[in-house]
């Protein structure tokens, strides 16, 4: 089944109508087994019949995933066939947020099959079969109590459930090892950041059945459930991205931004429909350059030099200054600073430990941060930075609509687009830095402890990047209405 979905996604290049690719609720329901399966595995519940069916299908379809897609007009240079799964990932991610998790899991599957790494589904399946009798229940039609393992629940699956599934695979070691994981992480980041022409993407966002914040809220709620049900079995992974994101009011800001975006979109439509034909053409031509600023095509994955605190703050501050709104990005820069402070501390402690007594790992652990702690701090920082980004975009929308100073909408679009890129790069850098820390700190750890943590950080970082980009797309109608209103 996943193969089918994926093909649909592949065919939907950004140039085509987004309606075709738009998943109805039904689609998401159909996707369930793919996403929910790892969730069920995490909880060590017997799998339902549909899950095992999808798994077989998945294996059957696996070879297809490697096929390059010649129809894609361009692929990022230097990555060869990677560009193809990348493209499909991005159209998946942008067609609807509901499929973000799925898109990434597809990408991971693809990446792993390309690399000869077993898919998370296979991995979790294998590891599940070995230790527990329960896993054999996959053939039995009995579905447990039903609440949390409901297929619906997994429909809009959250990345972290996937990552936890990966974490919980326990025994199985990814054959590709660290390099493969790092590669996947980097490419997931890069590829997600590519984007497609903003207008289509926004249209896709606007037309779908549920809004991004709803999707996230549901995902968070399921995560809360999972925290509960998995509490006894999970020993690590205390940090839950969705919960932390909500705690920093990321969801609320996103929901508010969505309300403003929808309202603006409705206004644009009603204004356009009230105009005579010529005027509509004229307005649409005027809005074209604005839409172009939302395409994020200039994203360049080579330019990833670590910035100092000052550089980052200054860059964000100057971008905000060019918006000419009275909002200060202080909270974001503080959160970013805090992230670098803990990373530096962890790094310093690690070095001290190594210098003093390299052998006594057990006694050293008391002072030195454990890999789990680093992972949790990283997830927290990612969630906080993303929530702050949501707040900034929401405040920007508010103040642009408030109509403080008149700055051309296109200039604001450019600044916001640049800000999106800066934020995504920052998250990418942060995740790289964290994984470096994890590898050095966990040099003595077994790879089945370390790898899932690293994957988790990469996955939540790409998760974050897609939320930021989706929030950015919500700003287009806001700028459109502000442009139209400034003309009249």
């Amino acid at each position, binding site marked *: 089944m996943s193969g089918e979905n994926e093909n649909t996604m592949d065919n939907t290049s950004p140039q085509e109508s987004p309606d075709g690719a738009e998943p109805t*609720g039904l689609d998401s329901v159909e996707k369930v087994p793919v996403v929910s399966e790892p969730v069920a595995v995490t909880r060590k519940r017997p799998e339902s019949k549909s899950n095992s069916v999808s798994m077989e299908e998945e294996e059957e379809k696996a070879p297809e995933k490697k096929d390059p897609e010649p129809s894609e007009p361009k692929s990022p240079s230097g990555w060869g066939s990677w560009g193809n799964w990348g493209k499909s990932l991005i159209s998946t991610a942008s067609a609807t947020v509901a499929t973000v998790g799925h898109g990434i899991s597809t990408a991971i599957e693809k990446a792993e099959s390309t690399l000869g790494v077993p898919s998370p589904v296979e991995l979790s399946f294998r590891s599940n079969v070995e230790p527990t009798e329960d896993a054999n229940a996959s053939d039995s039609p009995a579905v447990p109590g039903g609440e949390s393992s409901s297929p619906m629940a997994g429909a809009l699956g959250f990345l972290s459930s996937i990552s936890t599934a990966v974490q919980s695979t326990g025994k199985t070691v990814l054959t590709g090892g660290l390099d493969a994981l790092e590669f996947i992480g980097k490419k997931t980041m890069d590829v997600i950041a590519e984007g497609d022409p903003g207008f289509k993407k926004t249209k896709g966002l606007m037309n779908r059945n549920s809004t991004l914040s709803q999707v996230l809220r*549901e995902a968070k709620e399921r995560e*809360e459930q999972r925290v509960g049900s998995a509490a006894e079995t999970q020993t690590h992974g205390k940090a839950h991205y969705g919960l932390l994101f909500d705690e920093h009011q990321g969801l609320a800001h996103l929901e*508010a931004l969505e309300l403003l975006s929808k309202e603006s979109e409705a206004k644009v439509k009603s204004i356009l429909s009230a105009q005579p034909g010529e005027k509509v053409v004229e307005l649409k031509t005027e809005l074209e350059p604005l839409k172009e600023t939302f395409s994020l095509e200039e994203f360049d994955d080579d330019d990833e030099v670590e910035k100092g605190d000052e550089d980052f703050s200054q860059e964000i501050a100057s971008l905000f200054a060019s918006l000419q709104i009275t909002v200060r990005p202080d909270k974001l820069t503080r959160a970013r600073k805090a992230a670098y402070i803990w990373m530096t501390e962890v790094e310093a402690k690690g070095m001290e430990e190594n210098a003093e007594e390299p052998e006594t790992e057990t006694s050293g652990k008391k002072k030195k941060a454990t890999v789990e702690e680093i992972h949790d701090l990283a997830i927290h920082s990612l969630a906080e930075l993303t929530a702050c980004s949501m707040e900034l975009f929401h405040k920007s929308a*508010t103040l642009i609509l408030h109509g403080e100073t008149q700055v051309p909408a296109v200039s604001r679009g450019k600044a916001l687009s640049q800000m999106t890129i800066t934020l995504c790069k920052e998250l990418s850098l942060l995740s790289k830095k964290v994984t470096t820390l994890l590898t050095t700190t966990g040099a003595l750890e077994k790879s089945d402890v370390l790898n899932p943590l690293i994957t988790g950080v990469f996955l939540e970082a790409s998760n974050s990047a897609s939320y930021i980009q989706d929030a950015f797309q919500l700003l287009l109608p806001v700028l459109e209405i502000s442009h139209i209103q400034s003309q009249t």
Partner: protein
Amino acid sequence: MAYAYLFKYIIIGDTGVGKSCLLLQFTDKRFQPVHDLTIGVEFGARMITIDGKQIKLQIWDTAGQESFRSITRSYYRGAAGALLVYDITRRDTFNHLTTWLEDARQHSNSNMVIMLIANKSDLESRREVKKEEGEAFAREHGLVFMETSAKTASNVEEAFINTAKEIYEKIQEGVFDINNETPIPWIPSELQWRPVTARSSDLRQLQTGDSCEANGIKIGPQHSTPGSPGSHLGGQQAGGGCC
């Protein structure tokens, strides 16, 4: 952290009547005499218990300034409760109640519970609006009335919690149709209607989506093991100030 329901609240009223202070008192139990002007909306959240059920209040604290009026109107959507606040020491804030009420009624669900809050009750010496006037206004418009002081915390808890109780009662009575008017396309028609107290977990999952948006009530996730280690992060927590 686990909750049975999530209620969206919205706080409205003229600028300077103490909306943000009421929120801060409720979420953080502290008073801040000088507050920045709210830009658009700020957020706070807190968990309360009603009838043995955990309910999460997600509170939208809107800007009172006239210039933000058209923006804050967008935020009414999906609210289950509203606190309409005026300042007992400024009669004009009381006089504007009708406009606020019209706005609220026009842009929100008709079942939204509205609580009329007469704030700054600690400033008795500067009182311009008598308690009886507030009560009369509330009676006339079918609102619940309460005098509060965000400074002394008097009646603040009660204001938020009584509103939640009222919403909860409406849910029990079936007035608040959690199911909403829009049918959920992928649910078989025989399952489309169900009592709001239904605990069918599969449906609850779905109910958290579109179906509940219009009346501001979301049903929380079920928890097989409440009080899990991860839950210490939750509880009381307010949305920070603006950036």
